[in-house]
């Protein structure tokens, strides 16, 4: 069953439109000389609030050690399966050989990533962080896969001072006291 809603008939002033045009232009001119409310993206960028979940990145500690030990928990938890890690042993002659394990390859497919932040939440080493970057583009699908090098370039250094693995190394150097 259809309902017919009757329209209120227009009065004379409304029929000639001119007062309504003037009202519209008044709004236009008020905004023209007032303070702008939009940003001129991409020249102007918004300030990113704290806790924003942008592009996931990998970080190094202040000594330049890659914090990721390739435990693959982020790969496991990632809902869209965007993360791919190839774990491997850190070579014996490396400065960080005492950490034993690190990623050989680390790919995040940004066409799959949904910016949920579960990877950051699950990371036991505080190695993966969703940072401020939100704008991504590329000419091919493969360009949209961030490899390990790109992830560290985006991530930079995390200024934390835990040095968990260094403490282990120092304890080992000191010996067991036995």
């Amino acid at each position: 069953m259809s309902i017919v809603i009757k329209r209120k008939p227009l009065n004379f002033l409304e029929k000639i439109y001119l007062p309504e045009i003037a009202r519209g232009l008044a709004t236009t001119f008020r905004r023209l000389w007032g303070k702008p409310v939009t940003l001129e993206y991409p020249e102007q960028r918004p300030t990113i609030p704290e806790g924003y979940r942008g592009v996931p990145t990998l970080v190094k500690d202040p000594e330049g050690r890659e914090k990721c030990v390739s435990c693959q928990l982020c790969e496991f938890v990632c809902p869209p399966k965007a993360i791919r890690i190839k774990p491997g042993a850190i070579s014996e002659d490396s400065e960080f050989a005492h950490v034993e394990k690190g990623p050989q390859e680390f790919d995040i497919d940004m066409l799959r990533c949904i910016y949920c932040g579960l990877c950051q939440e699950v990371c036991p080493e505080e190695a993966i962080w969703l940072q401020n970057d939100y704008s991504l583009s590329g000419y091919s699908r493969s360009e949209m896969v961030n490899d390990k090098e790109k992830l560290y370039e985006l991530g930079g250094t995390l200024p934390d001072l835990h040095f968990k693995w260094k403490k282990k190394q120092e304890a080992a150097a000191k010996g067991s006291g036995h």
Partner: protein
Amino acid sequence: MEEKKNLITVNIDGHDLEVAPGTNMVEAAAMLGKEIPHYCYHPKLSIAGNCRMCLVELGMPGRDRATGEAMLNEDGTPKIMWMPGPAIGCGTKASPGIHIKTDSPKALESREAVTEFLLVNHPLDCPICDQAGECTLQEFSSTHGRGYSRFIEEKNVKPKRTRLGPRVTLDDERCVLCSRCVRFSEEIAKDDVLGFTDRGSYTTLTCFPGKELANNYSLNTVDICPVGALTSTDFRFKMRVWFLKDSNSIDFETSVGANTVVSAREGKIYRIKPRRNDEVNDTWMTDSGRDLYKLVESEDRLTNCSIDGAEASAQDAIAKASELLKSAQGVAVVGSGLCSVEEQFALKAIAKSVEAKGVYLVARYGESDGILMSTDRNPNVRGALMTGLIDGLPEEELGDLGSKIDSGEVSTILVVKEDLVAAGLSEAQLKKITIVYLGAHKNATSGKASALLAGLTQFEKSGTVINQQFRIQKFHRVIPGPGGTIEDLYALASIQANISEDSFPSTVGSVWKQLRVGGTPLAGVSFKSLSDQGQLLDGSAFENLPFREGESLHFEPKREVVVAE
């Protein structure tokens, strides 16, 4: 099974349970579905009782000292005299009337205390530990752990990367000193190389001076290690265990047929572990058998079918093979002890349709170690006997076939998985014949094949094999085969269908509908109903054959072994 009258009644957490004498309390509780946490106890090793994790409360029915009469409660039930301190479950054997409490406050408190002590010097490096995800210390820390540490002193430092042998790496900081590996080496592998040095919290697992853990069973120590202390050098840092999907399989290395679990992720196999079967391999397997997964991606893997050396589709290659076999005058079949029962059944059908001038298998023999490596290195010779493909034991050399080629009696050979050159045929003899080859790997024979069918490895197909005890056991497909290959059974069934111009079952399940029809020793078996523990078949018809297997774990030869000259 024990006689009913021999069973004794024990009481676990208020439930009466009848068990065989000698059953320890960890096993008895498991029968009730209750888990008593433990590290050092292993059902197939001697009891050490050194981890103290399985502490339970223990009580016996009281007896009056003066009269020796049973003490009773007011309601007439026997009065239980509980011991003041907890006792270890693994070291407590069932005795009549024994009562234990596995989840009383005292038992739980004991476990929490033990867990806290074990974690005092534990490095807590689960993110880089290969055992994470299947680690009992991790599991019991979450059920019985405190969640935070009261230990503020410095943790002990121990060697992190000790090479115990060619296949085993030790991280001593993670060790909980359960001594399972020490007992395994001594009791099962009979290669006593491991021991503890130093005392107290400095105790360290090491090899005896000048020795290393190099025996063919060394990786079992990695399996039984309840924590991540012993790790497999091959699997180290390869993949986290929670990604792996397990499939039940059988070790194709020898006629022992050890039960295995093959773990794979996304079409790639990462490791092979033993699966418990108390009638075959207990919980053990050989190190060499764990390497077999490398066959899947080996360099000599055949990844496409071909006709006269030129790449061809599987359908064309099957058509060509069928045509060659059908039109030939003298056909011989060289099957393999590496084939499943179903494939051997299909081979037999082909041999019958082409009126084969001879059906052969190639024997492989090696040194037996008396445990899980038998003399016969073919996993399924008995399958070929049971299906009637052959009626005597195979020879290592195909001398008889060679003379038939020389006399011109045989002009075409269907070869499955075997290498005729390695089996003693000369290049000149191979030149005189047409070869149809089905197999997963390249060899001298496959290179000369007129029709080459790229088959699958045992990890890419399902089927059954019959081991030295005449136990039929099934293996399941773990991963799909590479593109360009064709399932062996399907290829053989198609060839048979083309030659006989009649349908032939091409799947494992449908083959069994024909295999199980009465009269054969395989009657009553079907792939679907066969348990993963296997089923013993009646092998008495073959008792007089001179099998060469000697004594090994759970196997005694029926007749005296003929020692090869």
